[in-house]
């Protein structure tokens, strides 16, 4: 016999749940010994009767604490923060050139496009400090330091270790730090001080060929930059059709803390730094 586990619920709760089309098994009981009482049913109006029907063979992967935290924070972010999105195309041919030359000379390091993007973001934030901010009910907080969180895919889910004071570091320093942090992230060895804080996040899916995307803001920060793949595209230069390596970036912005113009100013500053990359070496 396939006995279902007994659900402890008060008779009134059972009847109300049946009326509202709620599945008692989906409710958490607040009564003695976890008994489901009337109040639990009344506060759980929105849950559907049963989970969507899943056919075929399935596997239930228990949610880790990290997975649950990601779910909670991102749901909260997307539901409570008024996002808006700004996209801009970057011509990265010069940047790729510069990177090539630097990597040829380099000893012991290999700079990635992302290292330049971190540096450019940091410099742009220093120029447009209003974008380096957080919304709170009483005040909009502006950060004195430019600390950049960088999204890294770890085995258990997304983590965002931080390059602190990135505007004051060289691209090579950023690159070296990023390597250490990414390794720690992949090994699940990040310490709280590695990922707690940060004023701005970069999420780069370019290496997977993603053309462009819009990221969910990483609260309490106000901005996240989603970086797509650099690809050769036809472009119009000086009224003639040409070819350039273009990378599309999209800035997701918390409109409570940062207005459209500030977001646009940031992207303009960022674009200038990327397209004239020697400045990043200063």
């Amino acid at each position: 016999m396939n006995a279902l586990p007994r659900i402890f619920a008060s008779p009134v709760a059972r009847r109300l749940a049946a009326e509202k089309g709620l599945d008692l098994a989906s409710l958490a009981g607040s009564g003695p010994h976890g008994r489901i009482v009337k109040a639990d049913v009344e506060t759980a109006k929105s849950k559907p009767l049963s989970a969507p029907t899943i056919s075929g063979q399935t596997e239930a992967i228990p949610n880790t604490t990290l997975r649950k935290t990601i779910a909670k924070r991102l749901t909260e972010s997307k539901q409570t923060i008024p996002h808006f999105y700004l996209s801009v195309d970057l011509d990265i041919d010069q940047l790729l050139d510069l990177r090539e030359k630097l990597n040829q000379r380099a000893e012991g390091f290999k700079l990635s496009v992302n290292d330049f993007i971190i540096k450019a973001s940091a410099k742009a934030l220093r120029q447009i400090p209003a974008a380096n901010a957080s919304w709170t009910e009483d005040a909009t907080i502006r950060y004195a330091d430019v600390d950049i969180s960088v999204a890294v895919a770890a085995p258990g889910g997304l983590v965002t270790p931080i390059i602190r004071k990135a505007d004051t570091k060289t691209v090579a320093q950023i690159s070296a730090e990023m390597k250490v942090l990414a390794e720690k992230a992949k090994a699940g060895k990040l310490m709280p001080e590695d990922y707690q804080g940060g004023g701005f996040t970069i999420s780069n899916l370019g290496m997977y060929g993603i053309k462009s995307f819009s990221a969910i803001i990483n609260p309490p920060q106000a901005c996240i930059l989603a970086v797509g793949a650099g690809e050769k595209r036809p472009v119009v230069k000086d009224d003639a059709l040409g070819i350039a390596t273009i990378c599309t970036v999209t800035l997701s912005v918390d409109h409570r803390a940062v207005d459209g113009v500030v977001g646009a100013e940031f992207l303009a500053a960022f674009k200038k730094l990327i397209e004239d990359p020697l400045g990043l070496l200063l």
Partner: protein
Amino acid sequence: MSEQAFDLVVIGGGPGGYVAAIRAAQLGMKVSVVERAHLGGICLNWGCIPTKALLRSAEVFRLMQHADAFGLSAVSPAFALDKVVARSRAVAAQLQAGVKHLLKKNKVTVVEGHGKLAGKGQVAVEGGSTLSAKHVIIATGARAKVVPGLEPDGELVWTYKEAMTPKVFPKSLIVVGSGAIGIEFASFYQALGCQVTVIEMMDRVLPVEDEEISALARKAFEQQGMKILTSASVKGLKKGKDQVTVSVETGGGTSDITAERVLVAIGVSPNIENIGLEETGVALEKGRIKTDAMMRTNVTGIYAIGDVTAPPWLAHKASHEGVICVEAIAGLNPHPLHPRSIPGCTYAHPQVASVGLTEKMAREAGHEVKVGRFPAMGNGKAIALGETDGLVKTIFDAKSGELLGAHMIGPEVTEMIQGYCIARTLETTEAELMQTVFPHPTVSEMMHEAVLDAWGRAIHF
């Protein structure tokens, strides 16, 4: 001045305070109770308990007078007032000793004297030591409410205290206020042969009860010879020699009523004075200490329970608040007390008991209701007892089947209301109550039938 340190000091040893103290001791706290008068408080010494002893005497007296109806004979039943009062005092004394023993058994330190908050975590006992405590519960209770013009004098104008210990039995008595306290004394004095007149400001007696129950109670009291004036207010009071004339205003004008004594039972006032509330900044609301569901005041470490807080002012509410308060302090997760699940009882003849919403309140709250009634006349045991004045009334939410309220008048209803209280706590619907087997023959079968009747299924009526 010595100083002793405790985890918890409770100011007031009534049914709120001493229960809180015992629960705290069970949870491993070092506890002290500061009591200025008697352990057990008003309830045990001057309220619930001694009045029940008096009313028991009245009940036996009434049965003796009606011995004939039971095939018995009692030749000119009489009472000795001093012995009736002495029995009541003895009952209170016995229970007071019991509380003392319980506190000792639980290693609670009892300090005699008037306790007062004296700064953070300090309770000063008048003329004695200062106790230091991590947590302080104020359980100072309440006293009879006094209004200008009706000040009790202890001789002609009584509070419950004088009414409980009369030296001479008055031939006539005016009771101002028809809440549980007023009605119980009215019932006691009327049963022993006093002419009682009840004056009530509202339009019915026992105004917190269901309207139908109030009407039945009034009818029963009037049949016993009690005079009842409703929508009536006392305008003045003139004291004479061994008598008082009260000027009463009703819709029909003002009239004078004279009686030997007047009992003022118009409610209670919280004991908030001279306990250090002002100095510590404990917030009040409507003259009572404001608390949250876990009995915390606005000041960290200071709590309040019972009559000094919000209504209803009942001993069993105070006790539950004491337990909730202490368990929350201990980091447990007590469930808050739902005001609509606190029963109220009046031990008059007939008895009245209720829990939850009245029919009117339920309708006003927007419930679609199903109402069931069952009269004592249809109950075999009630007929055998010779107590056929009575009604059980149930009010259900028609949709959910939740028992919203239950109202009873008649024999043993104060002992039976807990059945409906359990039903409310367990959130039963009418179905579980219908499925429950009630023993036959009992008065409690009325409770079953009143549930069945709400769905038109009563068997015996």
